[in-house]
């Protein structure tokens, strides 16, 4: 078992899955209370955590909750009373926890969770889709997506740093694609404990701590008399989180040499006419095919989104305005939405609405249920973008790519 090779706290390199990298990051972050409830694929992280605790490599209490709702309620209350916490779920498990998920941001509780992205049943499917994590997009959660086990480790540390910043105090969910990232092995550079301690200060709940020394009433009842003002203060946290991510990333880069641009990563975009945009592990396949198409002389690139909340609107707008055509890949879908598109497509199109120079933007729905994205799929996307550029107008706004037809 690879786990035995990882020496937590020492700087070295080890081969590990996304879930294992996350567990190691949590051990180094000195997390206090963790809750788990089984659902594939996120739960492998709990397996690793349990092993680390059992072997004395991690000092935390792991509570086996009896349902996802309790999982999130337990860490919510633990966090308010001063503990650094972690939990996670996938697919319908994430949906079952929706009530505590929704009430955590207004109480300003910096839970860090992973969403092991999985299709929301029915029909029962284990494969990766992003709709589960997008369900908390509008309620005050910060959301981001990792591409590799290395980045999962990095983003766990970043997520704690940003979420627990008193200016923010909002929960953060790290999206890890089911199977592709949760279970795929990568070489991971493990930082030293000293590096982690330098980057990540101790969680200090301050004057919002629930403790007899600080007898406050939390999450009290309001109506039309105060709710609007309270919503506005939550919004202030959500707004400033972007600056906090930038500041944290700068320091992260100084200490670890990674995460230079925290919000997105550009690949072969310098002279590109058209770019594909997406989040998570689909980047592996897309980048490989972009390289291939580049050899054929196609001016294509790829932009991989990391943080979607906060959304770096100026940076995204400036970046995507440089290209003639933009194709957003959604491993999710929004039924009945404008032009029947995916969620990230709507985000990007909205961000570009006020751009001085607007690219021709189209949307590709693919990879649903964990379906691989093949060369033929990327070629089809490119063809549609090329046709749009030739015509000077978007040819097909939304296309389901790699879908069998009747």
């Amino acid at each position: 078992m690879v786990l035995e090779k990882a020496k937590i706290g020492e700087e070295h390199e080890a081969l590990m899955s996304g879930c294992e990298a996350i567990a190691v990051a949590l051990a180094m972050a000195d997390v206090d209370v963790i809750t788990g409830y089984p659902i594939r694929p996120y739960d492998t992280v709990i397996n690793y955590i349990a092993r680390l605790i059992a072997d004395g490599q991690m000092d935390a209490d792991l509570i086996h909750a009896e349902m996802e709702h309790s999982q999130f309620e337990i860490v919510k209350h633990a966090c308010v009373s001063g503990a650094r916490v972690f939990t996670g779920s996938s697919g319908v498990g994430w949906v079952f926890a929706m009530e505590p998920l929704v009430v955590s941001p207004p109480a300003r509780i910096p839970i860090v969770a992973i969403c092991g992205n999985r299709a929301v049943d029915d029909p029962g499917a284990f494969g990766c889709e992003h709709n589960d994590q997008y369900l908390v997009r509008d309620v005050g959660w910060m959301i981001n997506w990792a591409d590799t086990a290395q980045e999962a480790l990095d983003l766990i540390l970043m997520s704690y740093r940003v979420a627990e910043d008193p200016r923010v105090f909002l929960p953060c969910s790290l999206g890890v694609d089911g199977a592709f990232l949760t279970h795929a092995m990568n070489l991971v550079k493990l930082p030293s404990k000293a590096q982690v301690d330098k980057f990540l200060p101790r969680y200090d709940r301050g004057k919002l701590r629930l403790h007899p020394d600080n007898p406050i009433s939390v999450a009290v009842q309001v109506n039309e008399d105060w709710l609007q003002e309270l919503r506005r203060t939550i919004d202030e946290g959500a707004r400033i989180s972007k600056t906090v991510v930038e500041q944290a990333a700068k320091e992260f880069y100084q200490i670890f040499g990674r995460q230079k641009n925290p919000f997105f990563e550009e690949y072969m975009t310098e002279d590109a006419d058209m770019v594909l945009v997406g989040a998570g592990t689909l980047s592996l396949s897309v980048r490989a095919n972009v390289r291939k198409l580049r050899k054929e002389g196609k001016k294509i690139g790829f932009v991989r989104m990391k943080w979607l909340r906060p959304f770096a609107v100026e940076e995204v707008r400036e970046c995507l305005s440089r290209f003639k055509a933009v194709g957003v890949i959604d491993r999710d879908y929004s039924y009945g939405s404008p032009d029947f598109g995916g969620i990230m497509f709507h985000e990007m199109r909205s961000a570009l609405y006020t751009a001085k120079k607007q690219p021709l933007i189209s949307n590709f729905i693919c990879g649903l249920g964990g379906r691989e994205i093949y060369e033929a799929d990327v070629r089809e996307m490119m063809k549609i973008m090329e046709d749009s550029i030739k015509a000077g107008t978007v040819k097909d706004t939304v296309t389901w790519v790699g879908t069998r037809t009747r």
Partner: protein
Amino acid sequence: MTMTMEFERIRGVKAAPLPEMYTSGHRTCQGCDSALNCRYIAKAAGPRSIALGATGCMYVANTSYYSTPWAIPWMHTQLGATGSAVLGVSASLKVQMRKGKIKNEPINVIGIGGDGGIADMGLSAVSATLTWPEYNSLIVMYDNESYANTGIQVSCQTPYGAHTTFSPVGTVKRIMHKRWKKNTAAMLAAGHPECRYVASACTAYPIDLMNKVRRALSIGGPTFVAILCPCPKGWDFDPRYSHEMGEMACKSGMWANWEMEDGKLTFQTPSSGIIKGMVKRTPVTEYLQRQGRFDHLTKEDFDHIQKQLDKIWGDWGIPAILPFKVAEGELA
């Protein structure tokens, strides 16, 4: 396990602690025994306590923004999450104390939920919490026998035949609610072998109530106390009779005061007298007829309820607690 607080037994009203940890600032109804219950719990537990309150009357009518009645730290928890709330806070304190992040001291963690929050929606989380011996906590169910906060709807703790907005008296169906009240505290006592203390109390007997809270907090591990809290609005009686209504519930046998400590079951006043055969149960009609929610019941209905009660106190394996006994010939 972290340390627990040691308490003196309260012997009489005058010996109860003077400091109020639950004071003015709430807007509960006149004669609200659920609010009085909060006062007794907080008084008994004292200042080194954290209260977690589930959605319900004791949230909505209690902690309006800028006017909390709680002098101890209090936090709202979701309707079905009282068990999770106490577990989370207790684990948080324990780990932080173990790691030296906060001072190691006994802190009471008390979850307070209504019958809807505890016996209906939150039952699974309450049950889960009672299986964790290393986390000290007390879960209190204030049982006002309906979803009172939302406008009096049936819960699994609403007595047979009661009128609620979900079980109105109709021209065709006179009785809409025909389920017998769930025996929540007994079920929890029976099913959680590592839970050392489960009790049942009533606001009409405050000394008993406060001592049960204290015992639950000092014994260690997860504990549970169910408390009957008469509700003038939901039960439809004059607010001045809240105390009397609690007494009548206990004396008629509709409610029993008992405690289970380390597997030993004892009954308290007035249930102790009833169980010993020293006091006769009062006729249940006397209790029911004082409440508007039973106005539509006929003599047959009263007889049915009385018969059920006679069975509960007369035939059950453990009277008022467990309905079954070992069949004859099964034991050596």
